[in-house]
């Protein structure tokens, strides 16, 4: 049996150990050479490689991976920023949330000299998505867009000419007549709003106007263009070209559908080109590509714009170093390296000149990507995008429930939500 003093010692030791554990959990590293924490969206190693390459004698860049879906990325970042957390230095920000972060003062300003350089090197759509109240607030790193992917064998069998622009209506009809599917993204998540936005923009409309007015922005989804978009979704959801998992489909499940025996058409991001290289080489050889489908025949399609801008946190203890790191990360060469490793395409034409890309992608596909970016329709830049997007999801999901009333219902609902008169 332990004596009383031994027990006391034990108790003291236990308490000390507990405190040490707590301290260890709270304490950060404070070595001489600072580590810059870069919060990245998950990818297949591109940003890690760039982080290594951009680490210098002055600082090391360490990456921290955020959750997969864009809404969750926003939540994770915004909660920490709202807590004035200094452990975020750099972040990879999805375009729709750039305005919200900038408006809340979470982003350190970008110096005019660097902003000018970014403006001259980047695509126009990338700059538009990175600008809030006339100022560039994040540095465009990669710019993504969707194209129409098709199975060459299916197209041959169905006898549709893919060299000319095609409409959604055509695709759905051809696919259902020939036992194929049209794979899209229609789960209850941001990817579905991306599709809706592209459809509405393709019919010459928009979701929101005067977005900079915030709560008082004009909701324009209730328009002929909105109805055209609803028609496409309704048509697909009611046809036999509808993938079985339509209402839970994401970029990943869409690629599974496309790779299956019923695969015919799919709209998806640029990474698809190398998606099947290892898992299904036969499919990889069978992939064809074309411009994003038109919502209305004869009207220019407006493919989705996606991508990542790099922002420096205004709560960082190393804003100067982080800004330097940001310049390095977003240089065209590093954009090229990232594209090579991830299939997420550069935000600048100079990035496309990175030689390995030309080996990985056929020249006409690279040209198609760039052409798509030129006509791409970014989502509205507003600090309330999160609300607008969720409000659209709750009225437009599931896709089988979409009908000609949906645009009007969603417009009313978005307005109520923005004014705080309805629960989201």
């Amino acid at each position, binding site marked *: 049996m332990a004596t009383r003093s031994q027990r006391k010692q034990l108790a003291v030791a236990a308490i000390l150990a*507990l405190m040490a*554990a*707590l301290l260890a*959990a*709270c304490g950060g590293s404070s070595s001489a050479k600072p580590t810059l924490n870069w919060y990245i*969206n*998950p*990818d*297949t190693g591109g940003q890690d490689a760039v982080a290594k390459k951009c680490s210098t004698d002055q600082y090391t860049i360490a990456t*921290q*991976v955020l*959750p*997969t879906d864009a809404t*969750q990325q926003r939540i*994770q970042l915004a*909660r*920490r920023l*709202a*807590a*004035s*957390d200094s*452990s975020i230095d750099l972040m990879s920000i999805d375009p729709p949330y750039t305005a919200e972060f900038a408006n809340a003062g979470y982003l350190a300003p970008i110096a005019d000299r660097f902003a000018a350089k970014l403006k001259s090197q980047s695509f126009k759509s990338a700059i538009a998505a990175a600008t809030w109240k006339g100022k560039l607030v994040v540095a465009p790193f990669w710019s993504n867009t969707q194209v129409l992917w098709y199975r060459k064998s299916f197209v041959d069998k169905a006898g549709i000419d893919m060299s000319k622009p095609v409409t959604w209506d055509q695709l759905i009809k051809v696919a259902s007549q020939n036992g194929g599917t049209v794979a899209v993204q229609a789960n209850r998540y941001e990817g579905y709003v991306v599709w809706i936005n592209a459809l509405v923009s393709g019919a010459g409309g928009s979701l929101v106007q005067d977005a900079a007015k915030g709560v008082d922005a004009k909701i324009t989804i209730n328009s002929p263009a909105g109805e055209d978009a609803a028609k496409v979704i309704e048509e697909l959801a009611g046809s036999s070209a509808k993938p079985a998992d339509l209402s839970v489909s*994401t*970029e*990943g*499940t869409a*690629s*599974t559908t496309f*790779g*299956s025996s019923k695969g015919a058409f799919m709209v998806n991001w640029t*990474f698809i080109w190398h998606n099947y290289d*290892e*898992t*299904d080489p036969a499919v990889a050889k069978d992939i064809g590509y074309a411009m994003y489908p038109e919502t209305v025949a004869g009207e220019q399609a407006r493919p989705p714009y996606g991508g990542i801008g790099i922002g420096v946190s205004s709560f960082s203890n190393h804003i100067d170093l982080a800004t330097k790191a940001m310049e390095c990360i977003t240089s065209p060469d590093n954009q090229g390296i990232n594209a090579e490793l991830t299939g997420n395409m550069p935000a600048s034409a100079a990035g496309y000149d990175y030689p390995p890309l030309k080996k990985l992608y056929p020249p006409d596909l690279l040209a198609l990507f760039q052409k798509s970016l030129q006509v791409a329709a970014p989502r509205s830049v507003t600090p309330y995008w999160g609300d607008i997007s969720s409000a659209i999801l709750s009225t437009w999901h599931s896709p089988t429930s979409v009908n000609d009333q949906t645009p009007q219902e969603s417009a009313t609902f978005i307005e109520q939500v923005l004014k705080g008169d309805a629960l989201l």
Partner: protein
Amino acid sequence: MKQRSGLGTWVGFALILVWCLLPVVWIISLSFKPVAETTVGSPQFLPKTWTIQNYKDILDNPDFQHALLNSFGIALISTALAVVFAMFCAYAIARLEFRGKRLVLSLALAIAMFPVVALVGPLFDLWRSIGLFNTWPGLIIPYMSFTLPLAIWTLSAFFREIPWEMEQAAQVDGATSWQAFRKVIVPLAAPGVFTAAILTFFFAWNEFVLAISLTSTTASRTVPAQLSYFVGPDPFNPPYSQLATASVIVTIPVIIIVLLFQRRIVAGLTSGAVKG
């Protein structure tokens, strides 16, 4: 009734085993499927090809390692502290006479029924302003509070069954209430304390709402939260089989505890709520 235990009981026994273990076997089976197989779609129960690659990947995954460490640390510390506080409280309830005893028990009961989600907002706001957001203490403090009721109820039920005369005898021999508590009750109560600790540990190991709301990085994110944010090798497809693997790994401690202490857990669960 005794005579009827024949075939029926056997069938019931088998059904219960299938019911309880089928989902567990399923997730184990899934954990041996290669990631590529689940990405393409693999609806059959057993893997087409068996692999242990998932286990290697998951155990090598630094995020998962951190989450495991956080889970163990946070669960153990909150369990230890909650049980100590609960022990004091339950002793007072079972053995001492004081006003407000019923109030304390009602409070414990009310908190056991409290909707945790209702606290998420104010706690988040409070934690971020005092710097507890995304830290171990930020989870330990609420976990302690929410496990206290269960621990108090279980312990006071156990304490009530400890032979009262022995403590009295110690007090007659000149020991104070405190000494009587330490010398007599503690050794007798150890099994009860242990049971309370297991139940408390399960709660903290399992907790999810606070874990996702009050953490944001691997500095404090526990396994349940990490699982729901888990990103596999392919950012566009959930890594089904790796999620299954991680699920199996975090279930191992549960299974070990259950195997070793099943009798205690059953006693604790029922004594806390039903038995006197």
